[in-house]
């Protein structure tokens, strides 16, 4: 566990208390079974905003607390433990883009609303089944009043509920050059949103943009040069998501460990069998190593260190491997009960895979890490 200051410790403890009282896994299950189309509980989201978590990365001048990404990570980690579904992460990602490149006017317009929990925001990047920020094809053409956007975005987290979308579009060139980020309101004319049902029961949507008109002032940063901002935004998204995944994996491990101590076969607890003990020790080792990576990435962001990209790829790759291992072991070590819908194992397993694929999986980030290191 990272060394925390008093404010961080208080917030972490508050998050721990809130998720166990107000948002245990049973709440997620209820939301899932209730046919909630948004993929999150509105009352819980209201409480999250009231506790100030929506403003953790927003500076005080815009109505937030400016505590930073490590602090956001602490809260997301606790939420990950109980599979709390909320648009906190998506909104923080879009907020990040605004913080990194938004004009003063855009910040004034959106940040206070986000901090108050009055606006849900998200980032729309991918256009295919795999995370590939360099392959943006959605076009933005100059018009008399600004730009006209056409194309599609897929698997956008909380894309159905978002009041504000940050859309990565191609204004020219290919690959990393010629990418521009646009603010698009969720109710823009020409935008069609299709809510999808994914295995983790959270809000995810496909977007179809048909000649969506935006003003020139809706450009985030400068036209054609949006890739660096996008990349930096994605890194913060990866580190924050890694914190949520770390929390989920820690909980999966602890639940499994409890089961090893209580499930009796052959006249003794199955946790006395060395084959299972060694697999538990391996998971514990991986958890500790991964925690160091996640905390290092979040701290690097707060310090604005120069190795943020490598550390974020390290964190997301490691946490994806961990999530994969621990969620599988949770099902296997629980045996038959782990296969039932009544048990939580399946819920964690499903969330793990979606989170692994989001913002780049382990192989994406291993490749990126190697390229960043120059080999």
């Amino acid at each position, binding site marked *: 566990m990272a060394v925390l200051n008093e404010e961080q410790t208080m917030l972490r403890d508050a998050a721990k208390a809130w998720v166990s009282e107000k948002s245990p896994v049973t709440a997620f299950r209820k939301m899932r079974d209730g046919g909630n189309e948004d993929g999150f509980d509105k009352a819980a989201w209201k409480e999250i905003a009231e506790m100030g978590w929506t403003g953790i990365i927003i500076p005080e001048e815009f109505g937030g607390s400016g505590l930073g990404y490590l602090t956001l990570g602490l809260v997301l980690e606790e939420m990950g433990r109980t599979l709390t579904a909320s648009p906190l992460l998506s909104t923080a990602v879009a907020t990040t883009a605004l913080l990194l490149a938004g004009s003063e006017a855009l910040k004034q317009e959106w940040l206070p609303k986000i901090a108050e929990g009055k606006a849900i925001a998200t980032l729309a990047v991918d256009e295919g089944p795999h995370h590939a920020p360099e392959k943006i094809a959605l076009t933005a053409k100059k018009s008399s009043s600004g730009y006209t956007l056409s194309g599609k975005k897929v698997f956008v987290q909380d894309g159905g509920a978002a009041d504000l979308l940050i859309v990565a579009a191609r204004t020219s060139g290919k690959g990393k050059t010629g990418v521009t980020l646009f603010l698009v309101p969720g109710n823009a004319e020409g935008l069609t949103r299709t809510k999808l049902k994914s295995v983790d029961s959270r809000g995810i949507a496909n977007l179809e943009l048909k000649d969506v008109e935006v003003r020139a002032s809706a450009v985030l940063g400068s036209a054609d040069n949006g890739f660096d901002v996008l990349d930096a935004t994605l890194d913060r998204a990866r580190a924050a998501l890694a914190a949520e995944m770390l929390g989920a994996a820690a909980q999966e491990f602890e639940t499994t460990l409890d089961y090893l101590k209580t499930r009796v076969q052959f006249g003794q607890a199955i946790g*006395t069998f060395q084959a299972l003990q060694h697999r538990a020790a391996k998971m514990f080792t991986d958890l500790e190593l991964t925690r*160091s990576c996640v905390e290092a990435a979040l701290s690097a962001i707060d310090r604005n260190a120069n190795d943020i990209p490598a550390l974020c790829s390290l964190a997301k790759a490691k946490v994806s491997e961990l999530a994969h291992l621990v969620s599988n072991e949770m099902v296997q070590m629980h045996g038959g009960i782990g296969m039932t819908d009544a048990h939580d194992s399946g819920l964690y397993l499903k969330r793990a895979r979606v989170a692994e694929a989001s913002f780049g999986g382990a192989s994406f980030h291993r490749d990126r890490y190697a390229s960043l290191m120059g080999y």
Partner: protein
Amino acid sequence: MSAAEKLDPELESFRTQARAWLAANFPPSLKDKDVSMTAMAGVTLTGDAKLWQERMGAKGWGTPTYPKQYGGGGLTPAQTKILQAEMARIGAKNPIGGMGVMMFGPTLLEYGNEEQKARHVPGIVTAKVRWCQGYSEPGAGSDLAALRTQAVDKGDHYLVNGQKVWTSGAQFADWCFCLVRTDNTKKHEGISFLLIDMKSPGIEVRPIKLISGHSPFCETFFTDVKVPKENLMGPLNGGWTIGKRLLQFERAGLGGGGGSAGRGGSAASLEEVARKYVAIDEKGRIADFDLRARLTEHLMSAKAFALTIQRAQAEAKSNMSPSATTSIMKNAGSKLQQERAELLLEIMGHQGLGWEGEGFARDELESTRAWLGGKAVTIYGGTYEIQHNIIAKRILGLLDHQ
């Protein structure tokens, strides 16, 4: 450095003293050279190296936190940190090392009686007396408490008979700290901790040749060896607790936190070596994509390990309660070390498989030997499997199979 340390005038005055003493006593020819472990390899120091060891030994700063009354530095942890920083600043390495300092010394200070401390600590502090460890036996490896080397009470002395194995540096050692059986009716509670003079009649040492070609370990035979009763450390039949405590010091120094983890053979980075031996594609990537993927996975794990050491240090420095992080260090570190050696070998191809002589560069041969020697790291100091048992039982609270 925290603000509080920066402002403490007493510590700053110590810094000035340490800097002046080092300037006057550290031979510049030894910059960045580590001579601390040469004694275990049987090398006798000469010239500047000898001088530096003698000066640090006399000052007690090779063992900075040991009490002054036994020749140690008597420094506080804060002063020790400053001394280390000052030494690092000028590239001065601690010349006092070996089994005595790393393992036996801290245990002796904790469990030895006054007479034993007065007799043995000064030799450790000055590195004049070399110690070896008599723990493992042919029938007692991972199950160390199955040891059978017998010490029989003969009134004024113990008569020792038996065999120890993997006694590191025994062929050069002056003394041996040894676990012996003093009660055959009990297992763990029948073991005592005995200090044995290696010059005693009846001791025979045979070096063991390893797969790497080196002989860092020995077999040590005891035949009717008389050991004075005053050499019993701690209570009779109370040796297991002391022996285990000592292993904690050992594990802290091996694999985990030792800084050597992830290394093995060539000092060059793996990616540099790969550039030299494997083709590079037009984008500057290692052209063998399978190798590149595995190399990357290894280097990312090595980074994760380095970050974990940093985290453990930060936690230790703060007032947080000690975390379980350190328990994973030995296995994580030793696996990385072996993985690196295997990758290095694979990258070098046949150039990495030479034994000696022409056709192979020096660092190629060193890599090969380090790969072979490195197989030991998941065996000594508690095997990989024993470390997993320890994590499962002590940290995770899983019980023994009945």
